């Protein structure tokens, strides 16, 4: 398909392009380009619809090729339906369900076309399931995959869970203790975030970004700010870039440490559970030392960061981190040295590299199968253009691999932060951002602690947000959790679930 390549526009990461420069092709070529690029090693980072008028919806695809660090854009106009990509390209499955739900555009031939967030279509009169306008849509009230047969039973879990966690509904098709299939139904936390951003940016926008998924405040805020800075053609001061990098890695440290503790807790291994529970707090407090918020809120702002750190604070941060990292070292080693824990982690919830690639998984959930995708390495921005954090990979694809990758990333992020604190560049921490370029599009990628965060901003004629697309890593990865449960013990579900630790609200938006 040599013609296909010419129909793509390859752009540098986080550079704004004029909307007119995004290639617009017919649906057949659009499908061909995507299939061809995915076969050539691309991932679909985003695939979404933008309404043009009452009849037409324009589909945009953001394709990322990690090995060559290239990012490609392509678009096409569709009416009420188009031939689905999913049968030929499984990683489009969730995106196409989203497009069908949001815009009432039916991907014909989609093998499992169901709503994902359970809301009415944003284009009144167009509904993929012909539901009447004004009818009540209840979350998770839909068909579920069923296995029939003797001694096959169904276990339904949630949306209300025994622990204090977010709501989600899980249906297991079981044979005794063995799971044949797990189907996950979300949408209970749908807030209409993307729609509320249209017309912005305004005073609320940054706060929305910081609460897209509360444990990834810095990640999402950075993705947003990168896009704004690129559209406003603003140069972020180096010191601000360093502070953002530090905050992003602190967020990773806190969450990964918490996850190691929670994984230990799920197998009933108390020492690591208690230590990591406390140490997660230490990392959160370190973030609070920088910006006053344990979850990194009100730090990252368009043009830089809102808070600078003075010398004594840097020293305090550095010494606190050193001691916390030492303790994590001890707690993690307890985990790896304990054979009863390893017996639980190894070979549980395995996913293969083929499955991971086909489904387009991101972050530790992909790296655990030996895929070395990491936005900090493949599409570096900010401080990561100057300092390399090597991607951490493992090859077994099981709970152990996902846990061990977290441990490797803890060590590497820790070293990165300490290095940066030792040699902070001087200067301002915030630049002015001017008006946004009109009729433009910008893709912004950040490696959050769960994986690739993708924000796509499209501006209108006055530079306002005409469309804002958020793809949280959880959007890609929930299906990975479902796949990892195949042929596993149902009693191992909580452990597998924790090893992915996905966001419900980041998915539901």
């Amino acid at each position, binding site marked *: 398909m040599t013609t296909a390549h010419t129909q793509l526009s390859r752009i540098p990461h986080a550079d704004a392009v004029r909307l007119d420069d995004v290639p617009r092709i017919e649906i057949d070529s659009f499908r061909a380009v995507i299939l061809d690029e995915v076969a050539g090693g691309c991932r679909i980072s985003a695939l979404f619809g933008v309404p043009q008028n009452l009849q037409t919806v324009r589909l945009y695809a953001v394709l990322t090729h990690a090995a060559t660090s290239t990012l490609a854009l392509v678009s096409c106009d569709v009416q009420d339906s188009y031939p689905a990509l999913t049968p030929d390209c499984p990683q489009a499955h969730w995106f196409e369900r989203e497009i069908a739900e949001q815009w009432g555009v039916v991907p014909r031939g989609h093998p499992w076309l169901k709503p994902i967030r359970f809301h009415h279509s944003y284009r009144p009169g167009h509904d993929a399931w012909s539901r009447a306008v004004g009818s009540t849509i209840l979350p998770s009230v839909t068909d579920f995959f069923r296995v029939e047969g003797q001694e096959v*039973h*169904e*276990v*339904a*879990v949630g949306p209300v869970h*025994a*622990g204090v966690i977010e709501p989600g509904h899980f249906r297991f098709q079981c044979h*005794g*203790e063995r799971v044949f299939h797990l189907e996950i139904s979300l949408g209970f936390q749908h807030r209409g975030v993307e729609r509320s951003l249209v017309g912005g940016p305004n005073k609320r926008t940054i706060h929305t970004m910081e609460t897209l998924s509360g444990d990834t405040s810095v990640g999402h805020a950075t993705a947003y700010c990168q896009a704004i800075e690129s559209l406003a053609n603003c140069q972020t001061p180096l010191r601000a870039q360093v502070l953002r990098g530090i905050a992003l890695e602190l967020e990773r440290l806190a969450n990964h440490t918490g996850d190691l503790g929670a994984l*230990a807790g*799920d*197998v*009933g*291994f*108390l*020492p690591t*559970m*208690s*230590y990591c529970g*406390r140490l997660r707090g230490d990392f959160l407090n370190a973030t609070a030392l920088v910006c006053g918020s344990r979850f990194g809120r009100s730090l990252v702002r368009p043009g830089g960061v809102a808070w600078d750190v003075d010398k004594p604070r840097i020293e305090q941060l550095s010494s606190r981190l050193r001691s916390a990292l030492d303790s994590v070292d001890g707690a993690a080693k307890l985990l790896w040295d*304990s054979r*009863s*824990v390893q*017996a*639980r982690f190894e070979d*549980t919830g395995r996913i293969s590299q083929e499955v991971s690639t086909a489904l387009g998984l991101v972050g530790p959930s992909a790296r655990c199968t030996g895929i070395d995708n990491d936005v900090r390495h493949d599409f570096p921005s900010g401080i990561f253009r100057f300092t390399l954090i090597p991607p951490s990979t493992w090859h077994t694809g099981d709970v152990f691999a996902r846990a061990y990758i977290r441990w490797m990333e803890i060590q590497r992020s820790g070293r990165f932060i300490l290095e940066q604190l030792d040699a902070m560049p001087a200067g301002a921490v915030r630049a002015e951002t001017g008006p946004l370029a009109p009729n433009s599009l910008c893709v912004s990628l950040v490696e959050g602690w769960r994986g690739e965060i993708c924000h796509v901003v499209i501006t209108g004629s006055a530079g306002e947000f005409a469309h804002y697309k958020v793809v949280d890593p959880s959007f890609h990865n929930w299906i990975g959790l479902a796949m990892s449960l195949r042929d596993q*013990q*149902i*009693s*191992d*579900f*909580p*452990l597998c679930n924790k090893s992915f630790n996905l966001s419900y609200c980041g998915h539901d938006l």
Partner: protein
Amino acid sequence: MEVATLLPLAVTLIMSPLLLGVINRTKAMVGGRKGPPLLQPYYDLIKLLGKGAVYSRTTTWVFRAGPIVSLAGCVLAATLVPLGGCESLIKFHGDLILLAYLLGLGRLCTVLAALDTGSPFEGMGASREAMFSALAESAFLLGLAALARNTGATSLTQMHAALADGAWSVSGLTLALVTVALLVVFLAENSRIPVDDPNTHLELTMIHEVMVLDHGGPDFAFILYGASIKLWVLGALIINLVLAPSAGESVADLGVALAGMLILAVLVGLIESTMARLRMPRVPQLLVGATALSGLALVLEFGGIGK
């Protein structure tokens, strides 16, 4: 009837929740935490007894009978077990069989009550409990049979008295095998790590806890109290075996046995602090292993090698 025969029962009824307190405190201390007060299990029971109960419309009298019958079974079982030189309240030839089946009766009622709710979780827990306890029961009964053969007694009190006369130096091998087997049964039957995790909130991994999710208020207090008595009763069997009374002074022996119970609780806390739970398919292997040890002890006894 001597007053001393009331002692083991009274001690069991009063002190059994304390064992849980000691276990929890041990776990907290090893984990670097302060932990709940030692008497927290008592406070929990009092709190639950003061609450009302909620019953699902899908349940029947079976659901309500479950906690009462299982508590009654545990209390009756406590009347059969001697402790530290004090004879049990009720004793007759073959009472060890009754002990096993009183505990079994309580379990049966809990399982039936769980099935009565119609919840898939509870059904899953009931199936796990039935499966694992069937395996644990064989280890338990074979172990008691080996002891009966060794001591020539079929009453727990007589057995206990017979063990007092330096039995460890004569038939240490049999007793050691049975002790290990009973310890495994003790952990499994009381839903402790490595078989079950009493602290988890994850329904899908629970065994015992998931069966009682729908019980609340006084019913749940009965279940918790019954569980702590069961913990004490099975623990007392181990302590009677390991710390055979020697002083001949029943009060001193009782003191030694009580100290032994507390040490056992600390041991459980340490086990739970230092290892993870087994993967569920591995649990039967552990229980079959315990059965094998009990069986071996019995074979040794029949062959006269254990002595």
